[in-house]
């Protein structure tokens, strides 16, 4: 198992891998970087129309007491969700992509995973900045915005731990790739993103509270939309799930990655 310090000593490689991914991603595309914004924008648009307009979804009044916007309320949760699903998907792709390289030269297998995480974090930061931008334009601003940064980072840790394990599993059993697609879809609707927790029944609420992502989305809405701090319960849920996931993921990956690489 590689220690974080060992992985850190390969930071130049990590930076280069991340840079390579970013550069290669939009090579030969006309709109290039704009694509990374078009995608979430379209998703946001669709959800706003379907859940906000057709299904008459409503949002609470924002922290400044004037603003009520279903789209932005939705966007708070979506930014977090895009980060989480992005990290998981990217971890799987990163391990697959680095596999051939890992059989030919030595470097910690965690390095390409961290590089993949970095690219998604950059994308996440961009989306968060846009969310902030809208809020600032609409006059819904507070220092609590800054709290959304650690929330996003904790969310990335939670997803990274899961991604490390799934990345390994995907190489061993190709079913994992398909299961992840389904799992993410279930998780998306099992998290109050396109709806509010108080809109579902009591039983569903009691179940959904155990989904760590509920706390993350709650935290995002609190800090960026309602301009409040997350509740203690939410903090505990976020911190606990992120720590547990990262520790377990890192350990499993460190222990089994060398063996999986040999079998590539």
């Amino acid at each position, binding site marked *: 198992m590689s220690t974080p310090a060992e992985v850190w000593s390969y930071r*130049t*490689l990590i930076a*280069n*891998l991340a840079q*390579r991914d970013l*550069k*290669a991603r939009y*090579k*030969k595309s006309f709109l290039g970087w704009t694509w990374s914004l078009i995608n979430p924008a379209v998703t946001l648009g669709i959800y706003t129309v379907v859940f906000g307009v057709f299904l008459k979804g409503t949002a609470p009044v924002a922290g400044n007491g004037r603003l009520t916007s279903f789209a932005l309320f939705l966007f708070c949760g979506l930014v977090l969700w895009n980060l989480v699903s992005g990290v998981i998907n990217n971890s799987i792709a990163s391990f697959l992509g680095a596999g*051939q*390289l*890992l*059989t*030919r*030269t*030595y*470097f910690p297998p965690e390095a390409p995973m961290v590089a993949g995480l970095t690219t998604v974090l950059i994308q996440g930061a961009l989306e968060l900045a846009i969310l902030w931008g809208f809020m600032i334009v609409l006059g819904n601003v507070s220092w609590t915005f800054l709290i959304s940064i650690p929330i996003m980072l904790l969310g990335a840790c939670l997803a990274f731990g899961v991604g490390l394990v799934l990345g390994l599993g995907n190489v061993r059993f190709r079913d994992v790739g398909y299961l992840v697609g389904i799992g993410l879809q279930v998780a998306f609707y099992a998290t109050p993103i396109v709806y509010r927790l108080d809109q579902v029944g009591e039983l569903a609420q009691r179940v959904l509270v155990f989904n760590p992502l509920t706390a993350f989305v709650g935290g995002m809405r609190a800090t960026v939309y309602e301009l409040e701090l997350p509740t203690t319960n939410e903090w505990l849920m976020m911190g606990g799930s992120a720590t547990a996931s990262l520790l377990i993921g890192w350990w499993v990956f460190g222990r089994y990655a*060398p063996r999986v*690489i*040999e*079998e590539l």
Partner: protein
Amino acid sequence: MSKIVVDGVSKRFRLQKDRAHSIKELITRRDRDVDADEFWALRDVSLEIPEGSMYALIGHNGSGKSTLLRCVAGIYRPTEGSVSVDGRISTLLELGAGFHPDLTGRENVYMNATILGMSKRQIDGLFDEIVEFAGVEEFIDSPVKIYSSGMYVRLGFSVAVHVDPEILIVDEVIAVGDEAFQRRCFSHLFDLRRNGVTIVVVTHGMGTVQSMCDGAAWLDHGQLVMVGDANEVATAYVQRVNQVEDEGATVTAPSEAGSADSVMLQEPGVHVTGVSFRDGSGAVTRSATFGEPFRIEMHYEVLGEAVRNPTFGCAIHSEGGVYLHGVNTAYKRVDTGMVSGTGVVAYEVDRMALAPGSYRLTLGTTDAHVQKIFDRWEDISLVVRPGAERAGDGLTDLGGHWNLTPDTTSAMPPQLSRSTGGGGGREGSSRWSA
């Protein structure tokens, strides 16, 4: 001082059932009852590689050479035993590994060099040298997917050898690229070695082993057969390979020795119907051995009337197309007399002077004046294997002897001498004495 110590290393691979078909051979060759799911790629291998030496791993395909190389490089963890390595390793297991086809040569150089452990500043300093060595200056800002395979490989090699390693691990990658580049690769490796870099190579070229390496280890089915001086190990290995090959060659029909297409003109004249090679003892062989006697036999058949004093000839080209040798019975004033029916003509060589390597042999028959060509058989593969005598560099070995005379007072002045004048010794500096 040993740079790399391999101590009792064994490596076991688990074979997955769904992958079994691709390594079927490995399974079927082994005893299925024992444990078909396991395969020992290395068994109790111990060796020490001294600092600053060039060390070769030899053996047939699947003998565990590459596995051992990967264990040393840290890519594989040994199942048993340990590998201790003292120094920074650069690996060259596959050239251009990690090149991204959509990125430019420049971007890929930076990428590849960081994988091999260089910092951005170090790469900045070496960048021009890397590109120049690879000879891809014009294309460095084009995506590598438009590169020819040669350019791809050259750039990969260039990056790997410029990273200033303490230990360089090279798999059979240098066998690619054109001759000129290969020579440059080897001379570069040689320079690295002179600068104290420890180099471990996997190679099938015994010429390389004998001429460049200090030590060698011979692996067979994951076990160490022999370890020691490169020359001795290579010679022993070659003897074994030759022996195995010859056992397979005794049943060869004469016409099978040359597998190339023959241009058979069904016209009257002398036609070549088959070729066979024989070694010094007269046994049929598939290849010649450097420094040993060798005989090329041409089986002929005369169609139509008997031919007076026909000419039989042969020519040898290098793989690169260099015309090395051509001879026929007319040059040598051999009277072949009236020839009819069938028969065999042999060209005998007392000492094979072609250096180990692959050559193309052409055989032909003409009339007495070498005007009318009766038959011509081109592109017969002729392989010269290394023998007990070690060949010099280049395509042939003149077989000369060295003689040292320390006392020059009694010796004649040299015929051609270097002028001691101020010209710097470049142009017109040598003169033949009258």
